[in-house]
């Protein structure tokens, strides 16, 4: 990918290092990955912060995301314009949150966003149904889905409003020790 000086200035790399959980090398590698998705759109030279965005279609075809049932949700949760296209900044951000180093609280915030399909800041029944369908390839019957969703809400809803707020979600995650290791994508 050539000389590192031509891609980012030192100042930019420092900024990325301070704002994400990545080292310089990893940021350059991420740029490489971003670049190879659309070599004729993404410039090699990022020193002037070009305003380039890649559409969701390209990003969800990355091998890391391709088979993930939540790929669209992941990408749109990190998209700055909300429409699913990611700038390089968003791209780095996404993998920073999904990296091993990110703390539980940060991961929880974004996991919540990912599972919140209708973006009403609650994981409600409809969201749970969608999650369930994605997790099981829609092989459960209507009644089973309703039953499971009801069960989940009953278990995790602490304040009794019939849906899961962030506090409920966080509380649940704090009791699921595996979450930290599973909400993680190696790049």
């Amino acid at each position, binding site marked *: 990918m050539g000389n590192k000086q031509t891609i980012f200035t030192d100042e930019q790399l420092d900024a990325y290092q301070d704002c994400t959980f990545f080292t310089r090398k990893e940021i350059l590698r991420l740029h490489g990955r971003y670049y190879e998705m659309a070599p004729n759109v993404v410039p090699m030279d990022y020193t002037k912060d070009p305003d380039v965005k890649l559409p969701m279609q390209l990003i969800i075809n990355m091998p890391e995301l391709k088979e993930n049932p939540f790929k669209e949700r992941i990408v749109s949760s990190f998209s700055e314009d*909300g429409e699913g296209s990611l700038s390089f900044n968003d791209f780095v951000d996404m993998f920073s949150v999904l990296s091993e180093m990110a703390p539980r609280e940060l991961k929880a915030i974004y996991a919540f966003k990912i599972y919140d399909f209708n973006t009403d800041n609650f994981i409600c029944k409809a969201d749970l149904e969608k999650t369930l369908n994605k997790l099981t390839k829609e092989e459960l019957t209507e009644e089973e889905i309703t*039953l499971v969703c009801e069960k989940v809400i009953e278990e995790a809803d602490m*304040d009794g409003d019939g849906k899961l707020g962030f506090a409920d979600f966080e509380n649940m995650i704090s009791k*699921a020790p595996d979450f930290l290791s599973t909400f993680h994508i190696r790049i």
Partner: protein
Amino acid sequence: MSYHYNETFENPDYHFSETLEIDRRGSSQRNPFSYQTPHDSSQSDYYGERRGREQNYPVAIPMASLGPGSDCSQDLPSTSPYGNFTGNLSFEPEPELTYTPHSTSHMLDYPYTHGISSGSEDSFIRRRNRRPPDDIFMTSSSMLETDPMCREEEDLIGSLASMSTNERIKAIQKMPETMRKKREIRNKVLKEITKKSRHRGAQCTQGTWGVSFGRFGNTLSEYFHQLRPWHKTLKIIGAEFGTSVLSYFVFLKWLLNLNIFSFLINFGFITIPQFLAAEPNNLSFTGLELLTGAGYFQQTVLYYGFYTNATISKVENGPSYNMQLAYIFTVGIYFVICFLILLFSMARFFSRNFVKLTKAFSVNASKLLCTWDFNITNEKAVKLQQKNLLTQIKEGLTEVNKEVLNFSVKERVGRIATHLLAWVVSLATAVASCAGVYFLSINNLELFMKGYSNDLQRQTAMLVLPVIVSLLNTLIPFFFSWLGYLEKFQTPGQHIYVTIIRNIILKISIVGILCYYWLNIVATSESQCWETLVGQDIYRLALVDFIFCLLGSFFGEFLRRIIGTTVCMNLGLPEFDIGRNVLDLIYAQTLTWIGILFSPLLPGIQMIAFLIVLFVKKVSLMRNCQPPRKVWRTAQMTTSFIFLLFCPSFLGVLSVIGVTVWRLKPSEECGPFRGLPSMYAAVDQWIQILESYTVSKWVVWIYHNLISSELFFFIISTVVLIVTYLYLEIIQARKTMTKLLQNQIINAGKDKKFLLQKLRREQRAKRSSSALGGRGQQRSSSSYHPSMQPAQEVPGYSERAFDRSQNTSYHEHPFSVEISSSSDFPPGGEPSPSRAVALALRARAAALGEDSDGSGGFQP
């Protein structure tokens, strides 16, 4: 019109809680709409105090502005949620996020068109409709100086600027913001710091020093990152087999690193100096020695016996190197470092993974939302995981009806008897294999002492013991897991843990009996150099164990796959047995630790072995195995593996090493400690020498008063015990507190539900009693402000206002009394939709009041 109305009744809780949230938020945001001069100075004061209050959502927010005069403007935002405010606002930001600035800038830019949607967005979830064009961004930053809302950001920047470099970077990294925002904040903070440091020149240099040190550390860690050949391997394994199998490889990698480290230490401080003073080796090398470790290797740096007890000095009268001290200090310091590494990684794992083990509830919920393994990127693996989850959920559904099985007394007695029997059998097996190993080894030693007729016979006899031990170690676990199947445990978790405990008992007792044999029998035998004998024994054990490990993956996985795919189709592909494999690793590591004293280069051998195991296991896994069907509790498993490595294994090794160093008499003829009463005597001698020099008096003082003084250790351990006890007490108190707070949250939720139900019932009653009169009032109330909210016109709005206007008196309601008494409400038939809002807010505030106390314990 009726649509929204119906919705209210179909799903009242949902509806109301949302309303209440928005009321709260709306009250803080209504001003930009009603006053059109946001830069007004009075406005800034208003925001200042508003912000302060908003932190704990007190009743005062609505009450302060509920006066009749401001009714119209204040209720606009609170009613609009039914139409425009689909975004929900009750997303409580974490403490550290409260200082993320509100998106005032665009509120000011588009007070009417965008105002509602963007203004209502919580600062927290702002990604959806963030300011799209850059120019707005620019104007917003140019406004920063004047806009009072940016005070918050300034506060944030100020607090960030006062942190240390490390803390600051961590805080910025943790912000759930976009990169652009983070970078902006970072730049501002840096500017702030340079501004500050201009006043204090001295601090500036210090700061840059810190920064450049940080950079240096970063570049260093980058180079280490490059030295990770297995990064890709781990990624592939994670992608296909998920986190649980990956945890085995992570553990293996960790052990490999540990061995590389100890090899480097031993090689650098013990072996290299020995090379300088080495005597020529005149034993012949046939090749079989590679297996037995005897013969030629006896006279190499591999074993204790070859090391000299002299001080090595190349230059006459120059600096010399004392081999005895080097040996004892290297091993000692290595164990101290190992101890610390294990302790810290154990503590880290515990704090990460056993966050709350008090109550393992929300089984279903976490299954749904927390178990998806984002690591997996292989198509087949994804399908398999989906299938596994499906079966689990289905199983869970059937269990909903089953509940807990109740056994009769007879059945229960039968169960307990089976468990007892199984335990007796497994313990008996362990004892029997220990006895077998013990007699075999004694027999072996006698034969060894007597000598053999020929060399080949002698070398084969040497291999009998390690082969038997490895056979026991490999075969008995199968017997144990078969026993486990017979026992019919209620949960698979129990089965796994009981089997692991039995295997650990077996392996540790075999190692224990071998240690007893080495320390009590071999050490007192009349052999020439017993340390070398022990070293050879350990070498053979480690090597044969390694070979068995390779054979195990050949027979256990490769042949099993062949059988499973061709002969017995219903067997299918084998699964990777994480538990057994990890125990093998722990066993191998224990041997290495014991062997370090007798054979300093053993870590190097083990390092090569682990490297080969890593790649063989990887290939075997990719070729032969399928991802595990059970969802392992990976994180907890890894933690317990590290714990097992620490508790029986490492502590046992420490005691063995301790006995060897302090109690046993080293051989007379060989090794660095020849002629001394014990290995530790070398240190005593050194201290005596040091006493004659005045320069090193402090070392002697430390030695006498701290290291060899019982009183010091007595005091230290008393202090540690007291501190531990205090912490235990604090933990107990916290647990009680957590329980109380949890109950409080649940109660608050119940209260809220109850109040909302009551409110709804009241509404319904009122509406049915006076339906006609209200409509007139409603019209008049809606005529207050048609022009004020062009963007907020909602179809259901007037209906809503009508509903509210009916709720004029709730005298039977406990809160309504408070409302009418504490506020200057016009009593009776005044058309005030705000009354219902006030009531609802009251209920909300009451719930939140407790809630905010309660949630304190849960937010990090």
